[in-house]
């Protein structure tokens, strides 16, 4: 368990790739620099495309939490 407190949470469980990444991008778009967005996704594709995009966009992927049936990604907007 992480103790990171997100400023916003996007629940994209049930959405197929690239839905979760696009939901994350939408939330980051509306966030302030320094805000942390938590993305909940049960799509395996998120395990690769979220880190790739975070790096490309210069945002930091603080943590990936593996939960029972989904993952939680914590991304801080640069």
């Amino acid at each position: 368990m992480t103790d990171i407190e997100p400023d916003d949470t996007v629940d994209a469980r049930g959405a197929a790739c690239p839905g979760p990444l696009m939901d994350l991008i939408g939330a980051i778009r509306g966030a302030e620099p320094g805000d942390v967005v938590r993305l909940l996704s049960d799509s395996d594709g998120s395990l690769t495309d979220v880190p790739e995009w975070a790096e490309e966009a210069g945002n930091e992927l603080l943590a990936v939490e593996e939960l029972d049936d989904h993952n939680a990604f914590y991304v801080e907007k640069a």
Partner: protein
Amino acid sequence: MTERIVVLGGGTGGSVLANDLADRLEPELDAGDVEVTLINDGPDHVYKPVWLYVPFGQREPADGRRALDELVDDAVDLRIDRVSEVDTDSQRLRFDGGGPPMEYDYLVLATGSTLKPEQIPGLAEGGHDYYSESGATALREELLEFTEGEIVLSVIGTPHMCPAAPLEFVFMVDDWFRERGLREDVEVTYTYPIQRVHGNPHIAEWARPIMEERDINVETFFNAESVDPDAETITSMEGTELDYDLLVSIPPHGGVDLIEEAGLGDDGWVDVDKHTLEAEAAENVYALGDTADTGVPNAGSVAHYQAGVVGQRLASDVRGRPATATYDGKTLCFIETGMDSASFVEFDYENPPSPAPPSEKLHWSKLAYNESYWLTARGLL
């Protein structure tokens, strides 16, 4: 007691469904046991795929417009009005112009997509589109006179209508300038929000080599943040800036506000069971087409197939039988790969697409279907 079915939205999904119900429930409609009402905020039905051809001077917006009262069965009550509120607790709709609320026993939301270019600073002033009648005609004015420079096609909004159309546009632009001997003077750049050129990995894998062969520049992980109409630049959240002489965008999309206000889902998309198309947050409410958040493309074929499923389910509901019809994710798209060639894909929730080799025959099949679409709208094809 009369069962009242109300369909909100007279696009592909709503019109096909209204005509489907008129046919399927003919005995009940004749007996007065069922009423079907189709509500639309304007008198015309609009077939949007026509707009792809408008910028190239090959179609007119009027080719995609017909009066709803000519398309919809006389057994359907057609109401031209704008709904201001959906109250799913009391099962009532209220209207912009006031008047008495309309009660329903079953409601189908087919309100479709709207464009929201204002979400990106500078986009409305600096960009063009072919996702609206006015956008397509304004783009035509620019494109027909364009002889040299940089064209940028930027996919900004996802989900957006017709996910194939951005690929089609750059393939057509490439071919169109090539045929006219101008391609060497025109740079074409395609941008996409994720790490590949299309949301569906199978279509992306097919399209990317074609783009390379055709010298179409590609920028992936490009999420437009702003447009500077004076400097003619578009800048992404990822920090990339592109110069353009002609910017064509797929603007951000959203559904209509009253869906979120009714608590049925975010951004105007209704949260549904992706097989039954029943709303998750309310009883006796269905959604279809772009409005239903199923994860499948926002495409006319999807709305068409979903209308058949909802029609069957509503008929079962009305007749007191268990509703068994379900939507399997079926999607069908022709994809133009030039001015006289096209591919074709068909897929569903379980089976991925496998694009057919491009051919002239498929191009003509697409154009032929576009002409015969009016039979689909009438519920005949």
